[in-house]
């Protein structure tokens, strides 16, 4: 099995006030976007700890998106700016540990930005495709293990 056969997974942490609503709107609008994204709702991107991003990669995520409100319009004033700082820090940690920093990305989407949101997911899916699955990705073996008796 070549590494490119592996199923990839993107974890998207979405702020309930913007990106989560945008993802919901994308559904209402029936926009097509990569199906390997798994959305985790957060009250604000400012809630997210660096540990969560690292945990996702440790478990085998191939890409992590942190989607918060547009800068200046955070529901909690500055949660998204704090998240940006943490994401930038986590990217350094990723690079130091040998993973590509591009696998982790902070994006800003408004609640009406359904197309923008799906665009960001698509972009991350392309990044993951270009970089190949993460060395920590166990997804394909997981599926096979489940099939075997």
């Amino acid at each position, binding site marked *: 099995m070549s590494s490119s056969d592996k199923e990839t*997974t993107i*974890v998207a942490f979405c702020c*309930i*006030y*913007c990106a989560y*609503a945008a993802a*919901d*709107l*994308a*559904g*209402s609008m*029936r*926009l*097509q*976007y990569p*199906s*390997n*994204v*798994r*959305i*985790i709702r*957060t*009250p*604000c991107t*400012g*809630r*997210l*700890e660096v*540990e*969560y991003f690292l*945990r*996702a990669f440790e*478990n*085998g*995520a191939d890409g992590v998106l942190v989607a918060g409100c547009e800068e*200046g*319009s955070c*529901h*909690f*004033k*500055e*949660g998204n700016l*704090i998240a940006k700082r*943490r994401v930038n820090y986590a990217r350094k940690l990723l690079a130091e540990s040998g993973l590509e920093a591009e696998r982790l990305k902070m994006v800003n989407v*408004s*609640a*009406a930005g359904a197309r923008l949101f*799906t665009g960001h997911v698509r972009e991350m899916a392309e990044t993951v495709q270009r970089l190949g699955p993460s060395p920590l990705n*166990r*997804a394909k*073996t*997981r599926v096979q*293990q*489940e099939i075997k008796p």
Partner: protein
Amino acid sequence: MHSAEPEKATEKATELMKMSVARARLLSPLTGTSFAVDQTGLVIGGGVSGMTAALALAGQGFKVHLVEKSDRLGGRALDLRYTLEHEDISPFVAGIVKEAEEHPNIIFHLGADVTNVAGFIGQFKVSLFQDGTDSEVSCGAIIVATGAAPAATGEYLRGKDQGVITQLELEQRLQKGDFAPGRRNVVMIQCVGSRNEERPYCSRICCSMSVKNALKIKKLDPSAGVYVLYRDIRTYGFREKYYKQAREAGVIFIRYEPDAPPLVSQDNGLVVSVKSPDFPEPVEIETDCVVLSTGVDAAGDNRRVADMLKVPINADGFFVEAHLKLRPVEFATEGIFLCGLAHSPKHMDENISQARAAASRASTVLSKAYLEVGAQVSQVDQSKCISCMTCTKVCPYGAPTVNADHKAEIIAAKCMGCGICAAECPACAIQLNHFESRQFKDMLDELFRSGKEERRPAVVPEKSGVL
């Protein structure tokens, strides 16, 4: 969203469900604190929508602040004269203005601007700027009814030839009686500056408006030639009847394609030439009156209002509701509602229905003396607190304080539940209720759990929600 790959979509749904179940195992019952609701409404915008909403609330016994930017009530309806159903609009508008003005529960702020909005559902503080002075009013719910504006255009010799007018101007002239059709033709052009790159949406009302004015001309002078150049006629719902009536009355509808719009020239009087996919040759119409249907523009102030209220507007500048179908007249931010043209272009009857719906939703807030919120707040495990003061520095609301024991404590009424402190606390002493660290981590673990690993045993929810 993934209609092309149903198996993958099911897999996604299954995994999302697994993650939610993993999180649900760790949820614990929360009890919130209650706070008093200021049982007063505030409506931004004194047009038909705003007045309808204000009257609906006032009629239920709530005090309502009605804030209008201009010094006159009525909004865009003041420009309109009659409806498609041949009803006079002016007496209706005058009636609703009179009713609002005489209502003891409505407090008017005419010529006032909203300059700041603070607080939250049940306890908003709205700053107003009126007659050169600042003031502040309190309210429990806000209805946004800021309206819209007719789009301006310079196309089709608009502004260069007096014979080129807009549908609104035509309507006003028809009502005043100084529009004499007769002899020559009237040509109406639809979708002017609409449904293009600059303004991609359909303004919804212009087709009906043309049909309305075309019928009026035909009624005044059945021999007048009325041509409507259109892309698609959208006289939706029961309005279709009037489109049929217009065709029966002899109004000629000519379709044009967006890449070949009609041409208006003024060499020997106004001449409109149009190439229709329905005719083999271009058609030339001599006329002395070209009427443009220019569509609806979002109010220029929307961006500023949206920023103050922290509610979204779309790329076209209209406000966006929380959910198209499930929460159509409210914003995701609790306690703020919307109606009228501020939301999207629509007919007056639709605006009135929406205004009543918004008032009805707002009254679900205002009818309560107390609201219970604040269950989703941060909590400090004081045995872990190292008194570093980080939480007091990062909180945007000043909710954490240090108590007499030198331990952090969070004032629930001030906490908005963002979780910034919980993520920042170096001692992991703070948890945000309902969004605890272990819940996030378990979701991430469950997503990537292989089939062979053992399931975790069920847990009994802890009372505090703190790890």
